[in-house]
């Protein structure tokens, strides 16, 4: 029983990381309709910058600074590359975000290097653990879950009550109509990119003690976060969290029954199944033609 529960906690650990990435994905997708393959690079950059800054300043300040820098980068990318591309097809968007992700990754390799870095554990150290019903997990997982939860809560409030948030929701539901009622849609998109990049950077900081930070971590995280977002239902941050946790749990329980070498293959097989059977995700609304043809 304790073993069974330990798998669950292990799944939650990984799942919380995927969820953190998926929230950022959904934020951009929900507002702009762009699936940002470079989201994983925001996470990497956040971790890298925070680790570099932590040498000069206290940890909370370093994390905040990293978030700010990456948020500015995210906004700048939108202005530089996406603002003028509004009319292009999904194909072009996918290609360009993939290109961005590669360039950012390779730039990170040349700015930093190939070695791994990590932030210190926020509470406790490498050995400390929290025991629950005979199983255990690192206290850092609570930091990740807490951060993700808080982010979703703040986003929810922001979307619901602030003017900028309402503008973003308007863009998401009908771009042209939003433009007609006088919303500066271009700025809203830039805002979405900034916020999402900042969130990604924050995720990169809180997961750094668990999985460490290195230049090529972004792609793997992006793919898993992507899977989580689709599993939950694209465009909905809350569903992304659920999706992330589900992917994590599926992976960890697959280890119990199958050789661990096929762990990722299992996760992707489940994803394909969901895509083929229920492409709008487990918690998403059926949107008909936006997702698939008849």
């Amino acid at each position, binding site marked *: 029983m304790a073993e069974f529960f330990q798998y669950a906690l292990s799944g939650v650990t990984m799942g919380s990381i995927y969820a953190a990435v998926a929230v950022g994905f959904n934020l951009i*997708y929900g507002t702009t309709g762009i*699936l940002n393959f470079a989201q994983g690079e925001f996470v990497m950059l956040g971790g890298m910058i925070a680790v570099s800054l932590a040498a000069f300043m206290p940890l909370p300040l370093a994390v905040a600074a990293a978030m700010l820098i990456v948020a500015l980068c995210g906004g700048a990318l939108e202005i530089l*590359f996406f603002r*003028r*591309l509004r*009319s*292009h*097809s*999904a*194909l*072009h968007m*996918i*290609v*360009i975000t*993939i*290109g*961005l*992700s*590669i*360039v950012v*990754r*390779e*730039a990170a*390799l*040349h700015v930093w290097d190939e070695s791994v870095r990590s932030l210190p554990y926020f509470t406790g150290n490498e050995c400390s653990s929290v025991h629950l019903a005979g199983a255990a997990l690192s206290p850092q997982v609570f930091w990740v879950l807490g951060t993700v939860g808080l982010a979703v809560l703040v986003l929810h409030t922001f979307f619901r009550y602030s003017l900028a948030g309402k503008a973003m929701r308007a863009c998401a539901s009908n771009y042209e109509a939003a433009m007609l009622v006088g919303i500066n849609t271009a700025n809203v998109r830039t805002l979405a990119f900034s916020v999402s990049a900042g969130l990604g950077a924050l995720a990169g900081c809180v997961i750094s003690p668990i999985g460490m930070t290195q230049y090529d971590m972004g*792609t793997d995280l992006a*793919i898993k976060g*992507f*899977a989580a977002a*689709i599993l939950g239902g*694209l465009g909905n941050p809350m569903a992304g969290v659920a999706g992330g946790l589900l992917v994590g749990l599926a992976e960890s329980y697959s280890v119990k029954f199958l*050789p661990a*070498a*096929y762990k*990722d*293959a299992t996760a*992707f*097989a489940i*994803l*394909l199944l969901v*895509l*083929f059977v229920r*492409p709008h995700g487990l918690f998403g609304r059926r949107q008909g*033609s*936006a*997702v*698939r*043809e008849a």
Partner: protein
Amino acid sequence: MRPRPLVPVLAAALAVVALQVAVTAAGREYYLTQTIMAAYYAVVALGLCLVMGYAGQISLGHAAFFSLGGYTSAVLTTADLTPLARSGWGGPLLRLHLLQARAGLYGGETIGANPWAAFGGALLLTFAVALLVGYPALRLKGHYLAMATLGFGLIVYRLLLGTNLTGAADGITGVPPWRLGFGLEISGDGAQRIANYYVAWGLVLFTILLLTHIVHSRAGRAFRALHGGETAANSMGINTAAYKLRAFVLSALLAAAAGSMLTHYSGGIGPSEASAMKSVRYVALVAAGGMANLWGVLVVSATLNFLSLRGCFGSYDDALFGALLIAIVSLAPEGPLQPLTAQGRRLWSRLAGHRVMTTPEGPAP
């Protein structure tokens, strides 16, 4: 009136011959090594061009088809099938030349599958897999299709990496030469290089010929209609799903054929051929060539792969491909060669005494 596909293909064939004569005359035949490898990768890009440029569908899993072909050939030809050959089945199989004996590099002799048989097996397997994946996946749109093909590619990569039969991380080495007859063989043997060059570029030209034919046929018109608007195409009575699936399967088969042949040429294959980065590279090449521009894709992919395989980009290899993706899609989404090709076409039309074409074949905006 469009230029007949045969004429540019003949011109290209002349160019291929001229290139070989030029490097041989210059005493720099070693350039052909990378030219051969680049040709096989170009076939994959051309196949993907049909899917992306003409059918308007994205595939982030083409490296998986390439490696399905390569690995099937490698596994079947290097596996020690001596027990099978000794069993009751051995006689007929050997007589049909489905099995063949080969000498090991370090002595000894083993019996493995005939490369022809392995090639057939590779195509069959790829056909089945492409159909199985393509059927449900091509019903998805845009981002969902991208994710589905990416997921498929990753599954193949993981399976290759996690299975001992496929050599796990080390891949498979010691793939025997593929004797085509008439003294030709696909192998890395230096003496066979010129022959291999013509085999590889023969495949490229065959691919071009096949694809131009398709693009200019009824299917091609269906693709263009599909690209313009799927619902409209559907209501015109075009079975869009079937056309998309055919394009997908054909391009998968081309990738597998290239993979199988390159594996014989290199003498082995590793799991990096199936990685997501490789799939992304093929997409990059198609985008850089101008999506719906077979000649553009051919020129760009052959040149870039040639330079990349020669190590011209050093540690900036991946970075260059990424930067290329961004630059071309944001600055010249029709491909950097589009203005050049348009000019060429105008010139051709003038020479042939025809009016300038008014409807370019480029992709829908």
